[in-house]
């Protein structure tokens, strides 16, 4: 493999993943609107295209075409950088996520993953932690009290729940003995659903913590305090409009997808079949690869479904309840989980 090939392959993978990711974001929005509509006993978008399937494209076009307003009082450099930062971070972390079995064609590097990194999990955490800046800077540079309050809330919430999130993953890492996402998945691949971390790996508590923390990290209901419309008229992106607002919007959904991916990889066996060896492999590279991709997307989709379901069902927390929950319950619980897992692993 020459250097030119390497670069070409890399660019190709990045391009494909980005496009797919953006499409996924767009259709996640549609999924949410549809689902929430059904939960609220209405139709949701249904006019544009069949079943409203073209709605996301129209939305995107609308965002692009709207007048781009930059309020006079804002601190321009940061006001412009912030949404890019937010979306950028959200998209980057997908770079280390493996989507399926490692296959390569014509001497290419492994498909279904942009970069196989030893410390993939840490990279995701690191990029997520950088994502805070997008929100914080957006709120601050807007020079608006609602934005600032939203941003402060958001920063505090993200920093707080990042701890619980990171700690909840330690049990999984302990079990796998590696930070490589592929290794973690393969370690769960022996007996199908039974060997998944969330079941056989005894990490259900960790999963619960992860789920809570992930909702908070993505500013999703019931932890969507930073953009609580009734209190903050939209939160940190109050002063944003058109494409820049759309970028925050996309960043949020991209984060949701990433979080779903990580949950799938860490707790639900990644791209492996839930039935283990009950369904024998097809002995066909492309078919197996497609099947693994199918399982992965299915699992991620179910997570997104859960996200929307929760959003349509649960009311929002109060801010102090949110902080209390994070520091007083999730954190100690995560630490206890680490201790219990360590003991279990040591005396198994």
């Amino acid at each position: 493999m020459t250097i030119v090939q390497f670069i070409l392959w890399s660019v190709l993978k990045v391009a494909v993943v980005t496009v797919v990711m953006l499409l996924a974001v767009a259709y996640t929005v549609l999924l949410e609107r549809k689902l929430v509509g059904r939960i609220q006993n209405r139709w949701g978008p249904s006019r544009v295209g069949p079943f409203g399937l073209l709605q996301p494209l129209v939305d995107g076009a609308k965002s692009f075409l709207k007048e781009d307003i930059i309020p006079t009082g804002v601190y321009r450099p940061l006001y412009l950088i912030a949404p890019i930062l937010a979306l950028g971070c959200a998209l980057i972390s997908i770079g280390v996520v493996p989507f399926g079995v490692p296959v390569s064609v014509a001497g290419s590097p492994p498909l279904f993953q942009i970069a196989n990194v030893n410390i993939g999990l840490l990279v995701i955490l690191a990029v997520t932690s950088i994502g805070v800046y997008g929100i914080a800077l957006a709120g601050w540079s807007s020079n608006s009290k609602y934005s600032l309050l939203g941003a402060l809330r958001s920063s505090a919430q993200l920093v707080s729940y990042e701890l619980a999130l990171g700690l909840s993953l330690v049990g999984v890492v302990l079990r796998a003995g590696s930070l490589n996402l592929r290794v973690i998945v393969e370690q769960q691949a022996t007996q199908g659903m039974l060997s998944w971390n969330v079941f056989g790996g005894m990490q259900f508590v960790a999963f619960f913590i992860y789920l809570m923390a992930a909702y908070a990290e993505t500013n999703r209901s019931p932890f969507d305090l930073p953009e609580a419309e009734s209190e903050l008229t939209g939160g940190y992106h109050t002063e944003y409009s058109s494409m820049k607002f759309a970028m925050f919007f996309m960043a949020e959904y991209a984060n949701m997808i990433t979080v779903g991916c990580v949950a799938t990889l860490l707790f639900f066996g990644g791209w492996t079949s839930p039935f283990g060896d009950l369904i024998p492999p097809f002995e066909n590279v492309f078919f197996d690869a497609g099947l693994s991709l199918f399982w992965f997307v299915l699992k991620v989709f179910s997570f997104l479904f859960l996200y929307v379901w929760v959003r349509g069902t649960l009311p929002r927390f109060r801010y102090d309840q949110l902080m209390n929950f994070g520091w007083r319950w999730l954190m100690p619980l995560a630490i206890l989980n680490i201790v219990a897992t360590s003991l279990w692993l040591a005396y198994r």
Partner: protein
Amino acid sequence: MHLILFLVFAGFCLVGAINLLLQSHPINSALSLIVVMVSLAVLYLLLGAEFLAAAQVIVYAGAIMVLFTFVIMLLNASREERTLGSRAALRVGFPSVVAILAIIATVILHTQGLGVARLSDGITSTEELSAVLFTKLLLPFEVTSVLILIAILGAVALAGHDARDPQGIRERTGGK
């Protein structure tokens, strides 16, 4: 490839550090510093310290600098004032910095036997690191954790409002 990456990210580092000095608004300086830190994380990766690279981003960029920006926002720090300060000190300070840099650079350039870094060089895995950290250096590690706990308590005590004076009335009225 290594050379290119090094040059790019070392450049980022230097530009970020110089920008830190040139910017008059603290938040810009903070962002420059974040650039420096992330670039340094890449350099760590190049040197085979992958765990440190992640830790650099998580701890420095993700925690410490968030704290900085947080404080900048909280105090609403604006552009720095053009105060005079101590001219004499600057007259002493800059030659000293130049001297320090000159000495260190001379020493580094005259040191024999320094190796080279390649992409194919071995990477220090997280297991190796933790094997040493949690066996030989367990006590320092625990002490560090205690240190951080104390730091948290100290920070709360210093920055938190007086429990008997939740509205800060005493502070505003000069303790009366």
